[in-house]
């Protein structure tokens, strides 16, 4: 089983990965064999079963609404690739 080139390209767009033509073929083969593996799921009888999102049957703990995060901009921006004027910079955003 292999996946169509177009599908790989769509997935790569959604996942924002540059996948050039030389890699598409290999990706398609490998993803195809993984999908063959996961297709075994289809045979399982799961009628009436709810999905298990979390291994333990716990519920969300809630936090009190109290500020306790100091300003650490300097430390955070020291490891950022491109900042200026206290902002993170990216190529022009076009809506």
């Amino acid at each position, binding site marked *: 089983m292999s996946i169509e080139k177009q599908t790989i390209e769509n*997935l790569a767009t959604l996942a924002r*990965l540059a996948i050039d033509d030389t890699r598409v073929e290999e990706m398609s083969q490998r993803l195809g064999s993984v999908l063959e593996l996961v297709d075994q*799921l289809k045979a*399982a009888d799961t009628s009436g079963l709810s*999905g298990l999102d979390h291994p333990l049957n716990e519920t969300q703990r809630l936090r009190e609404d109290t500020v306790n995060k100091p300003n650490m901009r300097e430390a955070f921006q020291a490891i950022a*690739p491109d900042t200026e004027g206290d902002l993170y910079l990216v190529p022009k955003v076009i809506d």
Partner: protein
Amino acid sequence: MHNFTIIELINGLKKKVFSSTEITQHFLTRIKNLDSKFNSVITLTENQALAAAQSADQLLAKGEAPELCGVPILHKDIFCTNGVRTSCGSKMLDNFVPPYDATVIENFKNSGSVMLGKTNMDEFAMGSSNETSFYGAVKNPWATDSVPGGSSGGSAAAIAARLAPGATATDTGGSIRQPAALCGITGLKPTYGRVSRWGMIAFASSLDQGGPMARTAEDCALLLNCMASYDDKDSTCINRPVPNYSANLNDSIKGLRIGIPKEYFSEGLNPGTEQAVRNSLAEYEKLGAELVEISLPNTGLSVPAYYVIAPAEASANLSRFDGVRYGHRCEDPKDLEDLYRRTRAEGFGDEVQRRILIGTYCLSAGYYDAYYGKAQQVRQLIRQDFVQAFEKVDLIMGPTCPSPAFIFGAKGNDPVAMYLEDIYTISTNLAGLPGMSLPCGMVDSKPVGLQIIGNYFDEARMLNAAHQFQQVTDWHQQAPAGIES
């Protein structure tokens, strides 16, 4: 000195047989001299280690030493360490120095332990052979042409090579137990929620769990005492008292009911591995345990379910690596799309990209129900299998992995063959149960691991059973050849 267990090191430190500075220096020297053969450490933190050792020695002198005071250990490079590069085995984070500590790291700092450095791992913990690391594969100290297992291969190999007496690790589908088995050491994946995930870089959030690795179960118990905690920074961390895991190690296991799942002894299991595991089970019978054949009928579905759920969660977890706030960023992006696509294509290795694409596929419109929804249902089936089994038995035992360490590249071209390496370990992650691996024999001069699976929060019983086994066997004491120099 490097053959001492953690317990022995603690006793030596307390009795002033040696200082923390001496043992820290000793392990640092070993890493510097020997690790070029194994590639198990990505970052050595020599100065910090010596400074920490010095403080530990002062505390020891004052008699105020906390439990692990002065004990040198390694941390998997998936745990964020304040001021120390945390790469997660990826080019993406090759330059990432977090300004915060993981809770696990904080716990170890509070216990007075000394961090020697950060261990190598499969990139973003995605792999079972350590071949996907940006820093190159880790080599198995028992046979350097073979894989150490993954993803915590660096931690496992370092302990096997006596470069550290213990290490932290993480397990999403077997990443503690499988490398522990292949490197002949002891490792434990706790119940999901027992150890905080704060600051532990996420692969698959509902499966990831940190745990200890050491040579003995007794040492693992000590490390788990420190590692396990309730943490209100992690919503999935369970608020439940942490027992003293060392307290019951010496209890008798007479009458212990051990479930042997028939599905764990089916085709694909190496005959030598099977023999070693069966011999160990016989050992348990001698110790007074009762073996009960059980069935975990949906074991075969665990690998397909895992390879939907884990990549799906990962595909979202890894979206934050976009070259904007930290980590790798491509040169001269021509626009925003180019920034994202090239940064991510350059920063992530092939296996990581593959899993992101699979996860994206399984969640995408039209496929969600068939893949993700179905996999979560299968996960429920797998959990039910275990719940039923634990009505009849106290622990479940079987092989950790189908065969001993394989040669590098042996499964390189076939992701599915690699994925099947985790067939016996994955289902405990899906169910959230604790599992451990301990050395139980040798095949072709390579170690074999015995897996113990416990009920939820039953780590103490698992450690007790493992310790009792290690009192009557010496597999855990064997060392690879050539590590003494």
